[in-house]
């Protein structure tokens, strides 16, 4: 029995360790891209956002609008400056997909009136040709 167990560990431990390392790397890369997304949205860096979003991305804004990538980029250009902060962010890897969730706080001024919104975001990322891109994102308003 001990021999069987040792053989099993010898065969699969390196595979399992390599797999775990790949997962950690993927989650770390995607978390970096999430931070980049936040700062790019804040500074309206459309070029950076263009590389982060997949062409087929589905995006649901905190106000309930379903938008395409082109619409998100156009909206980012058009809106007044927004201060974005994120908290309680966590990532979970499923092979070539990483799911990220967290709480987002948006602070800005619209129509001369200041506003603060809090929402739960959940984003899905996939690896395409060595790069991670966001394929879907939804922010749900957190009800007080």
């Amino acid at each position: 029995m001990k021999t069987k167990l040792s053989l099993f560990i010898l065969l699969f431990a390196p595979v399992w360790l390599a797999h775990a390392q790949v997962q950690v790397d993927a989650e770390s890369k995607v978390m970096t891209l999430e931070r980049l997304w936040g700062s790019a949205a804040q500074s309206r860096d459309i070029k950076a956002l263009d590389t982060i979003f997949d062409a087929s991305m589905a995006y649901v804004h905190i106000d309930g609008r379903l938008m395409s990538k082109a619409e998100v980029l156009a909206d980012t250009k058009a809106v007044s400056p927004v201060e974005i902060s994120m908290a309680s962010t966590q990532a979970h890897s499923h092979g070539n997909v990483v799911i990220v969730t967290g709480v987002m706080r948006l602070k800005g001024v619209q129509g001369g009136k200041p506003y603060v919104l809090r929402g739960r975001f959940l984003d899905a990322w996939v690896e395409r040709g060595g790069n991670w891109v966001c394929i879907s994102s939804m922010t749900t308003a957190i009800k007080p």
Partner: protein
Amino acid sequence: MKAVMPLLGMMCAAVLAVAQGPGRDSDLTIKIRSLEFSRFNAEQHKDIGALNQIFDDGLMLADPNGLLLNKAQFLSVTRAPDITILRMAPEEMAVRVSGDVVTVVGTYVERGMRAGIPYSRRCRFIDTWTWTRGRWLCIASTASSTVR
């Protein structure tokens, strides 16, 4: 040799599962739509066994109030006796296939009783499905009751 046989069996099963593959896009769209209908039906009828099969153990779910739930928490909330869902059904669904990842963007309607008080809501949702260990599992689900 006897010790190696079960290992070889496991490896063959893994190879077969990969070879079987996730399926053609058109078939896959039908399959995932069917799984979505099953999911809403199971949620309405509190069919925990079915939901357990549909959702991955690593599920991340954001409910329409912005609350984050893992699989165990979601099943526990679904089981809660103070909530009765009288109707829960998808209205529209767009299925996007990207290799072994599928995204479903849609809306659903829900009507029921919570602590004796009737409620109804229309939500937008995004579900993410992946081909895992030879079958399709929902790994993430998010919904918002703000639909524009």
